[in-house]
């Protein structure tokens, strides 16, 4: 798989950074607008899947390969768990929103969510990395099968 025509490649090159940024935006502002970590993460994964389809897996895997997606996956999951633990340590219980109480009266802003944007970002990265890992594994598995 070496990729598609140059039109597809050019369009993908222009569009994919925006898709990535859009995914991050959807994830970060989940507590303000519809969306959240999960759709954001899927959009991030979609960005990398698009790159893989357009450029072929050799090029894309140079950028973001299976090992790095597995590492991101684990690290983001651990970050999520750590937010729970920090709530346990600093707040009133596991997953207490301990940052939020530090910003009273800032409703409708990014900061007003306390630790929600952080958790959302962690979920977004986790979901993006794991879905990309599945896609990459399916692609690789087929390559092995054809040998």
């Amino acid at each position, binding site marked *: 798989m070496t990729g598609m025509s140059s039109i597809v490649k050019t369009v993908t090159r222009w569009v994919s950074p925006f898709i990535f940024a859009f995914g991050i935006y959807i994830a970060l502002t989940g507590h303000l*607008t*519809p969306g*959240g970590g*999960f759709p954001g993460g899927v959009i991030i994964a979609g960005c990398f899947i698009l790159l893989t389809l357009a450029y072929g897996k050799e090029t894309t895997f140079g950028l973001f390969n299976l090992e790095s997606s597995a590492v991101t996956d684990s690290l983001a999951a651990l970050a999520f768990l750590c937010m729970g633990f920090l709530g346990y340590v600093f707040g009133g219980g596991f997953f207490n929103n301990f940052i939020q109480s530090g910003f009273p009266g800032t409703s*409708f802003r990014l900061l007003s969510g306390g630790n929600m944007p952080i958790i959302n970002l962690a979920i977004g990265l986790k*979901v993006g990395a794991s*879905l990309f890992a*599945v896609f990459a*594994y*399916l692609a690789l*598995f087929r390559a092995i*099968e054809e040998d």
Partner: protein
Amino acid sequence: MLTYLLAFILFAVGLYSVINKRNLIKIIMGVIIMEHAVNAFLILVGYRMSGEAPIVEEGVSISEFLSTAVDPLPQALVITSIVISLGVVALMVGLAIRLYQHYGTFDITEIRKLRG
């Protein structure tokens, strides 16, 4: 009542596919359809007539919001259940591919090595 029943019919279509079809992909599709039906049912349960999305807008009073917003809890549950079903589907497809690699087919009748 009729609306709920439609969700149940969707559920039944999925169940029919899981029980009757002899093809791994059709069985996976049946499970996906059943999960869709349950998600739709949960959202229907939380709906109130001419309700609005449960998102507070600036300048809207809390009492007005309370009288128009739909039930947010089922929606949170559905997001969780959608993610869970995506995980299940990923695992199912991975297993189906392994089976295809072993037997060269998605047809269950040719796969059955284990019986009873």
